[in-house]
């Protein structure tokens, strides 16, 4: 049985950009800032493409929730090997308050609508570092979940997932359909090649509204204030370990 995979690809501020807090402290500056696909989502797409190359997955649907620009992120996924894209149009105030809870409702609705049996996501996004969407999606669907995956193997109707946990690695076997979230070591994403970038232009990309999926975006979360992390103070250089110990004692650390 070939699987159908839904892969979430989030548009985030590029990893190399220096993040700045807005003067009114409601969030961070995003206007005119370079965005790219969340690196963990790239890993999720790569895994789906590899499963497709092994003929285990028959179709890969890349989905992104957010404003118009998310279509660029979906195009990147299509260039990497996804078959088609769904852009869930969320903008303005709704986008500002969009969090894991609402996205998980969207993903769950799409998973049912598209009749997929594997939802592949990044373990977290590098902007808010929530690490909740995968778990919540599994809960919404009442499907098993394999989070922080560093190895995924399809074994008949089941999925063997090696998970990265604090103590080392944990191997679990879960029934399909399931939700899997990708950890850093699952794979190394490929470069989108130029021929594939051009081909991606011709792949199908549909836009839907959350309401089309019967999802309401009401948020239970209110942002009070966003602050810069405290500035790191300059350090002191010491010549010897004795000096170091003396200094540490002086400031009462040992």
């Amino acid at each position: 049985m070939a699987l159908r995979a839904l892969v979430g690809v989030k548009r985030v501020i590029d990893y190399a950009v220096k993040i700045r807090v807005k003067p009114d402290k409601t969030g961070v500056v995003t206007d005119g800032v370079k965005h790219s696909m969340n690196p963990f989502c790239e890993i999720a797409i790569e895994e789906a493409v590899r499963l497709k190359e092994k003929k285990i997955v028959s179709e890969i649907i890349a989905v992104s929730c957010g404003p118009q620009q998310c279509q660029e992120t979906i195009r990147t996924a299509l260039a990497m090997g996804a078959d088609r894209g769904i852009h869930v149009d969320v903008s303005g105030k709704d986008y500002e308050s969009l969090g894991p809870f609402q996205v998980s409702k969207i993903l769950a609705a799409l998973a049912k609508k598209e009749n997929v049996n594997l939802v592949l996501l990044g373990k977290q996004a590098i902007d808010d570092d929530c690490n909740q969407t995968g778990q919540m999606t599994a809960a919404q669907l009442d499907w098993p979940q394999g989070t922080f995956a560093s190895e995924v193997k399809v074994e008949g109707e089941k999925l063997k997932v090696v998970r990265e946990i604090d103590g080392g690695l944990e191997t679990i076997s879960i029934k399909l359909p399931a939700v899997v979230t990708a950890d850093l070591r699952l794979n190394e994403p490929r470069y989108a090649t130029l021929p594939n970038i051009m081909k991606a232009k011709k792949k199908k990309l549909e836009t839907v509204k959350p309401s089309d999926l019967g999802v309401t975006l009401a948020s239970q979360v209110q942002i009070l204030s966003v602050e810069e992390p405290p500035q790191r103070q300059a350090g002191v250089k010491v010549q010897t370990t004795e000096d170091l110990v003396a200094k540490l004692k002086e400031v009462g650390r040992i």
Partner: protein
Amino acid sequence: MATWWAASARAGLRAWALPSRLRRLSDISSARNGDLQATLEPDPVLFSQEHNALQESLRKIIDKEINPFIDKWEEAGQFPAHKIFKILGQAGFLGVDKATEYGGMGLDFSYSIAVAEELGNIRAGGVPMAIGVQSNMATPALSKFGSNELKQQFLVPTIAGDLVACLGVSEAKAGSDVANIHTTAVRKGDDYVINGDKMWITNGCQADWMCLLANTSDAAPHKNKSLICMPMKLPGVHINKKIDKMGMRSSDTAQIFFEDVRVPCKYLIGEEGMGFTYQMLQFQEERMWGVAGVLKPLECLIQETIDYTRQRKIFNQPVLYNQTVHFRLAELATEIELLRSLLYRAVALYIKGNDVTKFASMGKLKAGRLAREVTDSCLQFWGGMGFTNEVLVSRLYRDMRLISIGGGADEVMLSIICKYMDTIPRKM
């Protein structure tokens, strides 16, 4: 004092670890200036979303496969061309504007320019130059005028990154005066027998084949030359030495001698006697490619200079706060944008089929001049740090000096422009 100096240098080094283009974007956004932000939108003049996607993908290769090793290659005086070209070839970056039946992408020249511009993010001039020779300097004539058989043998593997190409035009006694080359290719039976020398050959120590310009008859200098695909691993090809250069150190540059090298006549590109004309056509692309290549390094340098002078204090205030510093940097940034505009105009005309020799020459002239101005001005603001080999500014000061010399010196560009202006003195 010494400790403080070293510490500030290290602080600077940390900042350089970030891709500077990205920092530039974030820095400008903090200016909260609507007009400035508008410049960050994808360039609507020449580049589409596909151009941007291409650049983003190439950037990943640069950050992962090239920049982490660049210091090592600079020191070694060579980079692993076969390895890097294979990576770029597999991703489709070496034949962007070449025909699809030969493994190219069949896109217009603006895509090559997008590649050239993005390659400017490589933190040394040598590697992008070597890539440019492979993709846009040694191959345009072959791709436009070569026979199908010749293209299968040389163009296909070059686009795929399996073969490394070099271009053999300059000689010890002829450089910008291309018409004066001495190397000969004399027909003997089904072979050309090649004798002579080539000088300043980028990729020369690693190349598998050379796009060679040689005299194939005694006719007038503009009508006696031919371009020939010459395999480098033939008896009689002597790579005399790897030239020790002031800059572009990660790129190998060779002096090569030919002693009765026999090459089948079918390796001739296009028609015999058309070599000079083909080469002049080839130069248009080479020059626009060269202009595209200076934009990012110069912008990056200005940004790094801003970052450094902002944190480097002199007389109790950041160096950047001196009007002579921030005004100068603004002036230079303006000139870079002007150069970019000229380039995009030339490219837009070129892809519509126009001869852009004049604009390409003007662009090349200005690129060389401006590269000297920017690197020199920035180096001055870096003070003692700028004079060390630990910083990008000193490397680019050395590397970019070549722009005014290679691919036709500034003076040659001026002569070409003068021809278009009809101001060359006539013989009395």
